[in-house]
């Protein structure tokens, strides 16, 4: 793995003139020169440091855990919506699919196996949904996704397998995660586990950004007919991204189930998907960091709103409206806009592509 990373860096900078014929021939597009890996590591280190100082505080660390879990879901939404161009109002439903599958299987089969099955189930279902709706235009896809989401919640509420008839779909006593003998019994321990998982997710997502998939998805989102004339199937590209994004959503659900210990169908309703959209748009839909930023921001916001909890829904919806109308680039967009300005002042030229 390290060899791949090193050779990637060298190749992108064209730093081995003797190795390849020609000086800058062979230098890759700008996206390969961005310091993605560094950013991921920096982020993980920062969160680790903050978290390490708080592991004793059960309450604070639980909030952190929530933020980490939801970040996985919003990163998934970034891939499904921003790159794939699909209104994934089904994201919360896939979280539910992941959560319940893992919760039901883990007492008998252990965490790792159950989580794996949950992800496979979600991948298959999301691919199927994307395939079923492959010809649906955006708004129609949105409605189809919502219909699917409602069906999923109905199943969770009423199926015997999810303790529907007996417990209304509420499941309790879900064991905390355990991997290869390592146990994570307390929220403080779970924190490290979640951080590691988020790290892997971010790494995987960065690998996708640094690949042809990125420019294919941007092109497909912009002018799908022209991409067809250039040999790229827009629907396949969108379906892959939707499947990946929804599977991440399922992973978030698995993490949620095992870190909270209980799950209920209400947590996976359509309204939750709208919240995820809000987080992504608020944080800045143009980059996968937007999802993370939005998730962290909106996981802390209820803490501040705690005294006026009733206002939560109103504030959220108005915030979403404001973001859509006024700040289409969100927090991350604002930051990168500032960074561009700063770069302009220091005289550095170059208008390289602005996606993190």
């Amino acid at each position, binding site marked *: 793995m390290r060899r791949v990373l090193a050779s990637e860096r060298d190749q992108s900078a064209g730093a081995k003139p003797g190795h390849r014929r020609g000086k800058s021939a062979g230098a890759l*597009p*700008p996206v390969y020169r961005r310091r993605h890996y560094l950013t991921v590591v920096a982020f993980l280190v920062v969160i680790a440091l903050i978290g390490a100082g708080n592991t004793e505080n059960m309450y604070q660390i639980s909030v952190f855990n929530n933020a980490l879990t939801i970040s996985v879901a919003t990163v998934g939404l970034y891939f499904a919506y921003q790159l794939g161009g699909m209104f994934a109002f089904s994201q919360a439903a896939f979280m539910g699919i992941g959560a319940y599958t893992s919760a039901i299987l883990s007492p008998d089969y252990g965490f790792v196996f159950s989580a794996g099955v949950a992800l496979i189930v979600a991948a298959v279902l999301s691919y199927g949904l994307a395939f079923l709706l492959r010809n649906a235009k955006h708004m129609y896809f949105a409605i189809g996704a919502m219909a699917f989401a409602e069906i999923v919640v109905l199943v969770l509420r009423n199926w015997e397998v999810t303790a529907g008839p007996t417990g209304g779909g509420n499941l309790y006593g879900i064991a905390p995660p355990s991997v290869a003998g390592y146990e994570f019994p307390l929220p403080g321990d779970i924190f490290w586990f979640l951080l590691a998982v988020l790290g892997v997710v971010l790494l995987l997502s960065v690998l*996708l950004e640094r690949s*042809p998939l990125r420019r294919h998805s*941007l*092109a497909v989102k*912009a002018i799908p007919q022209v991409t067809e*004339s250039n040999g*790229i199937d827009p629907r396949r590209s969108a379906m*892959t991204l939707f499947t990946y994004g929804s599977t991440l959503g399922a992973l978030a659900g698995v993490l949620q189930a095992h870190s909270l210990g209980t799950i209920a169908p209400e947590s996976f309703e359509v309204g939750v998907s709208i919240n995820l959209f809000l987080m992504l748009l608020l944080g800045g839909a143009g980059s996968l960091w937007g999802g993370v930023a939005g998730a962290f921001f909106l996981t802390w916001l209820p803490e501040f709103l705690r005294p006026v909890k009733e206002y939560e829904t109103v504030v959220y919806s108005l915030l979403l409206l404001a973001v859509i109308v006024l700040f289409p680039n969100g927090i991350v967009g604002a930051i990168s806009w500032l960074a561009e300005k700063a770069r302009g002042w220091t005289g550095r030229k170059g208008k390289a592509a602005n996606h993190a």
Partner: protein
Amino acid sequence: MLEAKDIRVKFGGNTAVDGVTLSLDEGQVVGIVGPNGSGKTSFLNAICGIVPATGSLTLRGRQVPLGRPLKVRAAGLSRTFQTPQVFEDLTCVENVMLSDERFRRTGFLGATLARRAMLRDEHERTERALRALATVGLAALRDQLAEGLAYGQARYLEIARALAGRPAVIALDEPSAGLNAEETKRLADLLRSVSEEGVSLLIVDHKIEYLSRICDRIDVLELGRLIASGPPERVFKDPAVIEAYLGT
């Protein structure tokens, strides 16, 4: 190289293309002209698979189904559009890399498990893209976002993109639209040199001067039918052709 037989296109009640047959040899440059409404662009759209049509299409000796842009592209026909359709969020080199003819390992697996091979492919793609950009004279703008390009530059970028896939045939829809006389001359020289490398060109356009200069043959359409076909000097003096143009 390319053989289109009896292409018909209907929109609602209108017959835009009424049984047009034409063919292209390797390295040949054919211009399609005709007054407005003659069906030139519809014909182009038909063989590129963008509009539903009947008839038959053969590329590089193999039958290609109509109405399937992906298959047409895979068979070796690429095209440019009336207004340059470049992807503004991508850099110039990325725009061109998009149109490579090999799409191995451009998906999820390529980015993750097959990463070493994917990066090697990306290198080769970049090199090919840079060569195409150099051919059209845009090599210096390789890392600039396409949204900052001037109209003429976007036009050349589109041509570079069409070239990158090493097509057998490039279909160009009014490539000189929006260009002045000097720019049109440069465009014509570029197209001529591209054809000398073995790529056949099918050019739909109005400007007779440059077409006369670079085309081996001119086909004239009127009301969806082919009314004249031959070397430029002869065709443009054909009374039927002159009447078609004057009649509009």
